[in-house]
């Protein structure tokens, strides 16, 4: 299995886009750190640090694209046959792709958190203490980490859908489009969701609600009564939906002719 994960990671590291997007993300973090330093009223340093200098939405887009292409490129380049007719089972091949994407997501989060800490140390050494309280008994730093963890989980909910669609359609455009729409959908339909949840309590268990997990951790006082959910319930919901979508994708991948 680890041989397969290493092979998937090898392919990722050999793509120019991996390094161009890394440079772009680092650049974005530096730009927003400088903006926060120059215009602290507009780009509040504590909030900007918590948001990892605007890197999370960019990571989401990168990961949606990477997840779609890790499956569809094998069909596009005609390499899926070669990947499958080895001693490894289909299940192992797919799980290795999940693990490679999981490690790739970790890479982005660890890297962007590291750059955020570096920017804080370089530009806000005396003006921002990340250990100061940020409400709910958390410091700016721990709150930032909690939001990162929540967005990691809800990003994986989206990625599990993208994996499934990439499997079904062999086409990255469909998978990427649905992933991006899914990313914005939660914010767009929050009002509609709220109305539905107020009317039928069970409606809160739909997958779109689960993607609001990071927003709820950022503004618990606002989202908890609106969605009638606790943090642990959202975490559980996310994990269950991730398992369901990955499970369907696994079934489809095992059944299809290549």
């Amino acid at each position, binding site marked *: 299995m680890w041989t397969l994960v290493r092979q998937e990671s090898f392919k990722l590291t*050999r793509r120019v886009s991996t390094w161009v997007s890394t440079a772009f993300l680092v650049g974005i973090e530096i730009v927003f750190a400088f903006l926060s330093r120059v215009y602290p009223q507009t780009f509040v340093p504590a909030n900007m640090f918590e948001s990892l200098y605007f890197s999370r939405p960019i990571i989401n887009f990168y990961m949606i694209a990477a997840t779609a292409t890790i499956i569809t490129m094998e069909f596009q*380049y*005609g*390499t899926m*046959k070669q990947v*499958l007719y080895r*001693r490894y*089972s289909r*299940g192992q091949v797919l799980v290795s792709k999940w693990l490679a994407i999981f490690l790739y997501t970790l890479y982005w989060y660890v890297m962007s958190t590291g750059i955020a800490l570096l920017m804080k140390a370089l530009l806000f050494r005396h003006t921002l203490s990340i250990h100061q309280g940020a409400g709910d008994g958390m410091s700016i730093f721990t709150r930032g980490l909690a939001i990162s963890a929540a967005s990691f989980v809800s990003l994986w909910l989206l990625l599990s859908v993208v994996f499934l669609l990439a499997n079904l359609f062999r086409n990255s455009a469909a998978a990427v489009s649905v992933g991006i729409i899914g990313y914005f959908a939660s914010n767009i339909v929050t009002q509609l969701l709220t109305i539905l949840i107020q009317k039928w309590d069970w409606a809160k268990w739909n997958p779109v609600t689960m993607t609001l997990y990071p927003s709820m951790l950022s503004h618990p006082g606002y989202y908890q009564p609106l969605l009638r959910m606790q943090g642990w319930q959202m975490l559980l919901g996310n994990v269950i939906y991730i398992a369901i979508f990955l499970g369907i994708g696994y079934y489809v991948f095992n059944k299809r002719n290549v």
Partner: protein
Amino acid sequence: MSSILSVQNLNKSFGNKHVLHDVSFDLKPGHIVGLVGPNGAGKSTLMKTMLGLFNYDSGSIKIAGETVTPQKHESLSKVGALIEYPGIYPFLTGWDHLQLFADGDHQLIHIQKIISQLNMDSFIKRKAKGYSLGMKQKLGIALALVNFPELVILDEPMNGLDPEATKELRDLIISESQHGTTFLISSHILSELQRLAQDLLIIDEGRIVQQTTMHELLASQGKQTIMLMTSDDKKTRQLLKKARFKTTPDPRVEVVATDDNTMPEVLRLLVEGGVDILDVTRLEGNLESSLLEVLKQSRIQKRLAEEEAE
């Protein structure tokens, strides 16, 4: 001798379309086997099913005694394959590809060996997106062979190869088969297959219509010919026609040898007719005409069987 690949009563359908009918055969270690048949006969489907890419309805596929299914196929560690066209990642170099798919111990030695055997040194470190068709084909073959498997399945391996590369590949296949590697090769370049394959599997409409050796097939079809180079081809043709010898439509002078007496009779005729004979070559029957004859006979028999059944 136990078989490296055993396919028994294999049936495969796509929806309502039954594409493989009770396919059964065994491949012996160290043999080069040609899989031949017309387009749509089921060659690629059969190869893909053997490689665990397709589910099948019934029957069994065993490689070195272990069953192969799309879900479970550990025995494919003994197999290398190139199916339809080589799958190439354009952002990787040829070397990266070989590194990616090389398994087990001594990977670097295996990679270096296959690169040198297929004469790929000049381009192996370049990104594959700039490769020509022939380079891609060579890389696909190298990927199939890099782990020096016991069984190699090649679908149209000569596609896009120049004569030099074709010869290199032929030499490599013969040399590896002498070391015990079994090859199953599907190709429409029958002249090339005729030079390589010892055994043949002839498939038509999803059925194995004949499993034979190359020698047996060519001999059974009685297609031996005698090719002549003479001082006067026109006069030669006239003499042969007058003596009622059967010639082929070939632009060269070719006489169909019906028995062992044909050669001396033809030579005597031409000498007595005053024609100088510059060269004589006995040609065995060719795979193309033999194959067409087998397919024709098999279809006739099938039609008769169907008519009888009605």
